[in-house]
């Protein structure tokens, strides 16, 4: 049943030939009649609820990126979810957010934010320190260069971003 919930194409094939899919999925004899009798509308609704819950977690983890995506966010996430493996383990939401950022980056989406990608990727792994050069720190509506440090100490992760000022700005100050 897990595969039916994950895979939209499989559900469409299930709609056309239930017996064949039950055989293909090698469903245990004791579960076959339950799976055969599934209501497709409900199955779709449950599958959609799984995507919706993933989407809500990712939106919460990368709020600035999500905000920048605006009304495109749901569509972009749908495209990402349809073409990516499902994240696993207790850090799956962080992994999901990191993979979503990577998807945006690969598609050269202008809404992609390197700082949020770096931060969720750091949280999703066990490293104790990570540093990245950013070119998209937004200060007064303009993108600036910056360095982001992510540190994990005694189980607590923190992030600091330092803006890099240009030589001209320093002279002006």
């Amino acid at each position, binding site marked *: 049943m897990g595969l039916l*919930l994950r895979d939209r194409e499989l559900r469409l094939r299930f709609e056309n030939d239930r017996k064949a899919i039950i055989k293909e999925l090698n469903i245990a004899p004791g579960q076959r009649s*339950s799976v055969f*009798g599934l209501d497709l509308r409900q199955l779709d609704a449950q599958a959609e609820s799984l995507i919706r*819950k993933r989407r809500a977690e990712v939106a919460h983890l990368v709020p600035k990126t999500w905000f920048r995506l605006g009304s495109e966010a749901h569509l972009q996430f749908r495209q990402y979810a349809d073409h990516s493996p*499902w994240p696993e383990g207790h850090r*799956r939401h962080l992994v999901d957010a990191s993979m979503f950022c990577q998807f945006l980056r690969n598609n050269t989406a202008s809404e992609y934010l390197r700082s949020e990608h770096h931060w969720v990727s750091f949280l999703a792994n066990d490293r104790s320190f990570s540093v990245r050069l950013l070119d998209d720190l937004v200060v007064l509506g303009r993108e600036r260069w910056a360095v982001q440090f992510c540190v994990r100490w005694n189980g*607590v992760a923190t992030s600091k971003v330092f803006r890099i000022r240009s030589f001209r700005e320093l002279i002006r100050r």
Partner: protein
Amino acid sequence: MIEEVDAESFVEVPLIGLAFRQPLADWILTKPDVIDCLELTAEHFFDGGEAQLEQLRDRYPLSVHGLGLSLGTPGAIDRKTLDRFKRVADLADARWISEHIAFTKTDEVDLGHLNPVPLTSDSLQTLIDHAREVMDLCQKPLLLENITSYLRVPEEIPETEFINGLCQQAGVGLLLDVTNLFINSRNHDFDPVEWLHRVEPLIIKQLHIVGYSFADGVWHDRHCEPIQDELLELAAEVVSYAPVESIIVERDGGFPPTDRVECELKRLGAACESARCG
């Protein structure tokens, strides 16, 4: 001087508690009077947070709630996840541990969220075996929770019979999620009170409650709304029917100011007290 009292005159009311979430952490750590107990989500402490957990343990009776053991999946429980769950339960000195009557993963895919198990004798046996394994390892009383689902799996065994059998044969209690029961009853058109009265009252040990959401003609469990009156009435019905020991308000988002959380907990406590006292 010791005064003799009539034990019959005492009515035990359930403990009222909250699911611990970071946005409320500072307030919770001040130990406000309205919070009797807390529920921690085990996965939130898999990667640390021991110092905070110890502070909470010193202030409240704790229960530890799991999301990812996937007790409804046939085959072995993921040992790494189970060991981490036990570690949190031990650190918390948990009074109860809990999980769901559900599966979140199969051999092929980790769906990451709760899904209904087929109500068959095979699934029942899987859940019984896994529940016993968790209790044997953790050495703490286990409660299993009913979930909400848009998918109604065809029943070989009626749901309430399945739950009664599971709790009695595995020796676990039921964590009855009042909101999930209400949402399922609306989405799948059945009477929640009739459903409740088919459940053996002695197995119901703890309740979950949070406001429901309603959108596009469907009820949802988004865990970010205040508790509605219908839910309070249903919770009171459960409290008058079963020896519920504690009730946990389980918000995941849309946190209001703490004075409003306080009001909600007081309102819930008052409803339960009047239900228990008749």
